[in-house]
Structures are given as structure tokens and as C-alpha cells.
């Protein structure tokens, strides 16, 4: 077991004929996932990945022909909002969007649309989802991860890799790793994923990597206090970030005192989250929590 994706996931890649899309689709296939097709409007009938998978004009067609239930999106920003809605409307259960730079106003509408249609959406501006040893739906370097019992939820890309690396050094594998993205509006929140990991028998502990800005970490911590029995280990990046400045991610805006790293960490600790002070201590802290 794991969450969101596994060896049975049937994956299509929207934007498979672009350079990013084709490179990463090949990597996902190489990792062992079932990449069953791609979608590029106007290029239906062609093949991609050296002839290994068919390309379709639309998500509806791709789903009908391949039985796809997961879509991975590499469509450029001007077309990405539409691509996400297309996948959701076609009945794709899980939509993962890697694209960076989608206007926030469009994402507000996309989120409302996807919820109405009933798909699960991860991203945008994220590294995707990885269930070690089973499937990779995104751009995470698969080789650093190892199958195991720690769930990882993170707003960041490379900081996720850092955490996974530290876990592996402690001999701890991961059930599923999810990069949720750092944009102001994202499809799936920390709280929702925490609930999924709590219900997943293969997960024994969860690592929550947050950043300054927004209140998602607090909402997750409050949920954990009431509903999560497994240990949750949390880290918040951006203690030294100056207030009011944007640090790469739009998510990293300190707009109020309750969104600062210090306030988030205090509130998380009050909710029973094991808060890690140093980003170098994530792996060791999880090890300690699991040995208790």
C-alpha cells in the first residue's frame, strides 16, 4: 500500500511531445511506472518515447483508449490551467501538474472546477508524487528514495530530496513522497494528505515540510492533533527570511505574524507535531520518533 500512486497506476503525460514532457515521461517509464500514453492537441496519432506510447488529441480519447487514471502535466503556463481542467473533466482520478508560473487567478478557478468535477489534483509548480519501487509521477530523482514506511509531504522540491536522503541514511524508506507545490493556490493541502497517510496501513510516520507564508501547516497540525495517531515530524523553512519578501515561491510571503516560521513552529508543537529546528536533523528525528 501507499497513497495516490502505485504500480497499477495508468499514467498519461499531457505535453508529452515537448522537451520537458518527453524527458520526464521517459524517466517515469524507466522508473517502472505504467506510462500508457500522452496528450498533445493536434498531435493525435503520433507516438512518443521512441514509439513506446501513443499520443492522443484529448484526455477523453486517451482515457478511453488506455484506461488511464493518472495524468502528469508539463504543459506551458498559458495552456496549463486548461490542461488541468481537461484532465479532470475527462474523469482522470489523479491530476499532477508540474508547470511553474500559472497565474494565481486562473488557479483559483481551476481549483473550484476540479473540486466540482471530483478529481484529486496535486500542484502546480511541484515535483510530483513518488511511491518508491512502484511509480514516479513527476520529476523527483527516483534513485534517492527507498521503499518503506515514512510518508513525506512537502511544499518544496530539493528540500524534499534532502529530507528523503536523510531518511535513507537512517535506514528509513518512504511509503509515498508528495511535493504539493509552493504556490498560493494548490490542489491538495497538507491536511488532506495527512488524513490519507493516517488511513494508509503502510505508513508509520509522516514528515511535513513547510515554509513561511500561508496557514496550511497550521491547519494540518490542528487536524493532526484531533485525528492523527502516527508520529508527525515537521520542519518550516524560512526562519531567516525577511518579512514581506517573496523568496522564489509565491507561497513564501510573510504577510502576517501567524505565517512566520517561528509562529508556525510554535503552533505545530502545541498540536503535538515533533518540530525539527535544524534542516539537518530531519532524518535523525524521524528515526528517534519511530524507535519510541
Amino acid at each position, binding site marked *: 500500500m501507499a497513497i495516490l500512486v502505485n504500480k497499477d497506476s495508468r499514467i498519461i503525460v499531457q505535453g508529452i511531445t515537448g522537451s520537458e514532457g518527453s524527458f520526464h515521461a521517459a524517466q517515469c517509464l524507466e522508473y517502472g511506472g505504467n506510462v500508457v500514453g500522452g496528450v498533445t492537441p493536434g498531435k493525435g496519432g503520433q507516438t512518443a518515447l521512441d514509439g513506446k506510447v501513443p499520443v492522443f488529441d484529448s484526455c477523453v480519447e486517451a482515457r478511453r483508449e488506455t484506461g488511464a487514471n493518472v495524468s502528469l502535466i508539463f504543459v506551458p503556463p498559458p495552456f496549463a490551467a486548461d490542461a488541468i481542467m481537461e484532465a479532470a473533466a475527462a474523469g482522470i482520478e489523479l491530476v499532477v501538474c508540474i508547470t511553474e508560473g500559472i497565474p494565481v487567478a486562473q488557479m483559483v478557478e481551476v481549483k473550484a472546477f476540479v473540486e466540482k468535477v471530483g478529481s484529486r489534483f496535486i500542484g502546480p509548480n511541484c515535483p510530483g508524487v513518488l511511491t518508491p519501487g512502484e511509480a514516479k509521477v513527476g520529476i523527483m530523482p527516483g534513485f534517492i528514495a527507498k521503499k518503506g514506511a515514512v510518508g513525506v509531504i512537502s511544499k518544496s522540491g*530539493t528540500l524534499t530530496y534532502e529530507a528523503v536522503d536523510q531518511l535513507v541514511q537512517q535506514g528509513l524508506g518512504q511509503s509515498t513522497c508528495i511535493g504539493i507545490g509552493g504556490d498560493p493556490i494548490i490542489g491538495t493541502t497538507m491536511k488532506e494528505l495527512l488524513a490519507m497517510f493516517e488511513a494508509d496501513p503502510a505508513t508509520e510516520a509522516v514528515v511535513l515540510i513547510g515554509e513561511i507564508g*500561508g496557514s496550511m501547516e497550521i491547519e494540518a497540525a490542528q487536524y493532526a492533533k484531533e485525528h492523527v495517531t502516527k508520529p508527525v515530524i515537521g520542519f518550516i*523553512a524560512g526562519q*531567516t527570511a525577511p518579512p514581506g519578501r517573496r523568496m*522564489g515561491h509565491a507561497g513564501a510571503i510573510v504577510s502576517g505574524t501567524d505565517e512566520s516560521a517561528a509562529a508556525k513552529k510554535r503552533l505545530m508543537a502545541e498540536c503535538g507535531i515533533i518540530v525539527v529546528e535544524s534542516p539537518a536533523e530531519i532524518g535523525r528525528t524521524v528515526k528517534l520518533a519511530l524507535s519510541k
Partner: protein
Amino acid sequence: MKIHEYQAKQLLKGHGIPIQDGETVSAPGEAEAAVAQVEKSFGATQFVIKAQVHAGGRGKGGGVKFCPDRQSALDNIGKILGMTLVTPQTGPEGRLVRKVMVAQALDIAKEFYAAITLDRSKAMDLFMVSSEGGMEIEEVARRSPEKIVKEWIVPGFGLRSFQARNLAAAMGLEGAAATQAVAMFRKLYAFYRAYDCSIVEINPLVLTGQGELLALDAKINFDDNGLYLHPEVEAMRDLDEEDPSEVEAGKYHLNYIKLDGNVGCMVNGAGLAMATMDIIKQYGGAPANFLDVGGGANVETVKNGFRIILSDPNVKAVLINIFGGIVRCDRIANGIIEAVKELELNVPVVVRLAGTNADVAKELLANSGVAIISADSFEDAATKVVEAARGKG
């Protein structure tokens, strides 16, 4: 992206939203003509001179002056134009005032606050008003939160009339003033959405003695991701208001923010970059900057990154922390070696590479002959760079 008050007012005026209008002056020689124009266009006899900088609290720093007559207006333009304005938001170094706005001084009966921004946790835009205008809204929110009234916009539906009426009523407006408010708020939200704004703030929104509702000030920020849709807005960008090294970094697609410490850092990924700054602080140092070199780090990005970091004279040591995923560490190592050789660096450089081909990369660095301090882990890197910055490295 931020714009000036005068630019924000131009945009709002163009969309039928009433504003306090005026003229802008960017050189002392333009003052006479600008004041004369405000007299002519608006029948003004009294004036307000306002410094145009991208920072709030202008009044507190002496950047906004009421002028009872023409001569006083000219005197104050002379004083404010070219001054270094220090406000609570500029930092102690202040901002050079390159432009001022000359506007008609109005007979103000009542001041309000109105703003639109995104409520992230609800994933909806939020329209807020308060009868407590003209002051710091954070203060109102703290002291009497019930005085801020909110309406959330359901995605795709815009600000509905009943919502605008609710807001006007909450401000205590009636009759013609309420009618004006409803029309203005709906136009304001339509503008916010159409232009991919991240903030539209009218503080104060005023009711004049003549019963006219208008924006006395306007602050508009835009979502950078949406700028490609609005070239006319992008053209309003004022590079003079931004840090020159940040502008330079932007040219190379590097995300750089200058801070006031002495340990420069170069990292791939925003989250890891912030965590690197945090660990430097925890080990007793102070980060000199935030620098995310992004996913496609190569020889050129590393070189440009070094140049920008070292343009800050406070930097005493540099930490490079790269977690190679798709990016191969051996390529980064070659970039570092080439950059160090070419730029003849005179500060210690600590390098920590992890992930794809990290072992090959470490060997390359060790055999390169360039003076690089290699680190094995995140904490090892932090320890070494903080020591190096103190001159013990």
C-alpha cells in the same frame, strides 16, 4: 510587481473608477506647469504633494504635504523631489524620490478602507472594507476586527451586486453614496480579476463634502505569473525602485534577494535555499542573500551567481549547496571549478554537493587544484562556512 500611486490611479481611471486626479513631476522645471494644469483641470486652489515611491507610510516620513496655496505647492515639490524618504517600510537607508504627484486637495467628509486580495485558505478572493480609513489597517484588524467587513468572491462569479450592497451598508453609506459604492466596488473587483492583481488597496477611500466617493490613494500589486497577459502593465515596472543586484540576477533567471549578513549562498530550489539560510543562522552566521539557481544550474548560472553574490562587499565566505536530482553534480562541480578559476575569487568557498553523481563531483573538486572547501553534509557545510566567514577557515 508593484507600481506607483500615479500609475495605479491612471489604470483605475481608465476603468471608470473615480480617483483623486493630478499631474506627475519628475524634474523641478516641470513643477510650474504641473501646478497650473491641476488648477486648470480641477479648479484647484489648494494642493497635495505626494512622493511616488514603492513604500507605504509616506506621510509619516514627510513625503505627503498639504499645501494651502500655489507657492506652498511649488516649495513642497522642490523639497520632496530628490529627497531621500525614510518611512517604516523603506528601511533606514530610505528611498530617493524621483517623481511626485501634484493633486487637488479635497474637502473630505469621511474616510474608509477598501481592499481586494486572495484568501489562500479559502481559495477565494476577498473584498474587505472598513469604516476606519486612512490609518494602518493592521492596527484596526488587531484592535477592533469587527470593523473590517468581508465578502468572499465565488470563483467565476465576480462580486455580485448584493455583496457590494452589503459592503456599502457596512460602511454606513446610504442613498447616492451607497449607489456610487456598489458601482465602484464591482468595477474594482472586475479590474482586479482582469489584470491578475494580487492586491488592490484603496486607503483611504473618501466621501467628499460634495458627496462624491473616490480613491484618494491606490496601491496595486500584480501577480508576476500573470504579467505576460498584460504587457501594458509590465511596461509600468520601475527598475529604479528595485535593488540593482536583484534586477541583474533577474536577467539571468536567477532568483536573488539581498540580505544583510556576510555568508553568501547559492542553492538550487527555494525551499532548500531558505533552509540553507536558516542553518547558517543556527550555526552562528548570518546569510548575505537568498539565491535560487533553479533546476537548470550550469557553468553560466554558477558564474553569474558568483558575480552577483560577490557584488555585495559584506560577503566574507560563500556556501554552495546543491542537491542534484535531474541536475548532475559533476556538471555543477565543473561549473564551480571554471567559475572560481575565471573570476579569481578571493573569498573562501564551501561546496556541498549531494544526489546524482555526487561522488564523481567531489573527486573533480578535490583534483581541480582550486581552493574549495568540500563539505560532506548539510551541517558540515554550515559549520565550515560560518568558520570561514569569521576568518578561521
